């Protein structure tokens, strides 16, 4: 991988995850299959990027971000794994192995950016408001936090990619079998954490049984997702008309 490519990916990651234009960009970088698609595009291999992104996404499925906190930063996992896969020929299995620590790394650096926002830029905007200085407000709420994010997140991504090429390949080659197994098993287990969060946030005691219903329906019948969606909506419709009390439930 050339230095230019590393720089391009790092800047792109750092700039994009600053989440300007909130709803339009945050849905992209919180979902790895969309962000992976973009990284693939930058690396000149959309198909590989999209596929690896989708695999990473599946691992963290159900982990949406509520209240602005990211449980795992799958965007940095995409930004590191996909370029390595495309330029160094890392296979998808190995990619998913390094995706987990990368995503964890991302969620470790995110609080640093938020802390700077809280302790530096918000007071800065407060002061600008007292002075009625609209230019300063826009800088303090826009450009400065953007640069903070770009430098910190992009910087970490740059270091990882710069060291990564040789380092990651060597790491995976020398990894004992049990360690590789543990990562694979964990990769298959992690979605459970995502779904657990989902039903914690969205679910109520009244709707929880439907989760178990959907779970076993899929386990036993192995339906396509569309088929499951049709059944689920039919069910919801039926219940809507038979139990008004449930529908007006807790939410």
């Amino acid at each position: 991988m050339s230095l230019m490519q590393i720089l391009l990916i790092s800047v792109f990651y750092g700039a994009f995850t600053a989440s300007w234009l909130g709803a339009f960009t945050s849905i992209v970088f919180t979902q790895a299959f969309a962000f992976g698609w973009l990284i693939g595009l930058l690396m000149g291999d959309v198909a590989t990027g999209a596929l690896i992104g989708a695999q990473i996404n599946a691992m963290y499925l159900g982990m949406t971000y509520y209240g602005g906190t990211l449980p795992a930063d799958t965007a940095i996992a995409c930004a590191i794994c996909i370029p390595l896969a495309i330029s160094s020929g890392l296979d998808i299995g190995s990619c998913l192995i390094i995706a987990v620590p990368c995503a964890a790394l991302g969620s470790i650096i995110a609080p640093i950016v938020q802390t700077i926002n809280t302790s530096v830029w918000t007071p800065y905007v407060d002061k600008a408001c007292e002075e009625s200085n609209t230019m300063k407000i826009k800088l303090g709420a826009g450009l400065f936090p953007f640069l903070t994010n770009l430098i910190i997140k992009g910087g970490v991504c740059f270091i990882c990619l710069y060291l990564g090429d040789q380092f990651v390949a060597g790491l995976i080659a020398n990894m004992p079998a049990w360690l590789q197994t543990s990562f694979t098993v964990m990769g298959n287990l992690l979605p459970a954490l995502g779904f657990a969060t989902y039903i914690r946030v969205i679910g109520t005691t009244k709707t929880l049984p439907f989760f178990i219903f959907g779970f076993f329906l899929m386990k036993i019948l192995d339906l396509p997702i569309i088929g499951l969606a049709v059944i689920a909506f039919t069910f919801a419709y039926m219940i809507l008309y038979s139990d008004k009390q449930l529908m007006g439930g807790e939410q």
Partner: protein
Amino acid sequence: MTTTPVEYRAIPKNILLKSWFLWQFYNHLSTGYDRKYVNGWTCGCLPALEYLYHDNPDEFKESLERTRDYFLCEQTFGTIIFGIYLSMEEQYANGADIDPNMIRQVKSSLMGPISGIGDSLMGGTIRQILLVLFLSYALEGAVWAAPAWWLIYICCISMPLFMIFLKTGYKYGKEAVSKLLGTPWLKALTGAAGVASMAIMGGMAAKYTSFSIQYSWSVGETVYFLQDKLDAACPGLLVLIILFIYYGLVGKKINYIWLIIGTWILCAILAMIGLV
């Protein structure tokens, strides 16, 4: 107000849209811990406030300081609050008998209920269902899945809702919300969406989570696998048990990083003794 304007200065449509766009643009940019999206809110209000208080720097300064409260809300549905907020500022700027603190209170009191609906309907249901539909194609290698998903989400769901909410919020002021929150169909819709999304997510959990134990024992010549016995009794039981252990732990508000590290340590131990 010190001066009473001769004619009512309503916020023109283009300034309202500009305000909304700036708010969207800055909303997540400087998320902090103490007041969350407050800076984005201030930026979003700027064009409208500049227009309303163009001849009164003191009022402008005060109105800016009014925007500096904690703000955290799902964006799509939060647009209702944004519309209401600007509409109240407009009424106040035009000399209506509104206590400025009321404007702040309306904003902070609406965040909770609106977020509740927004998170469960948008974040929890519409976005997730759309995501799993397209993700299942992407996993099979479809390159078009990601851009199609984004376009459909933005053009068919997000943008129309944004515009509707901005309009209703601004138009009805604070009456709109009590009207909207009180409608039985919204409650029914939220409830139905809750049931459907729970069932779909249950299915997704079954499809994309797996765990099996590699334990076997032999009686005479025959080898028995523990996993086979478990699958025969109840398929996916182990996964469901693990999921509900997570459910309990998430409820205890344990940091995700610890949960992930803990999972890894357990997996490593199980892998070392050869159980997985």
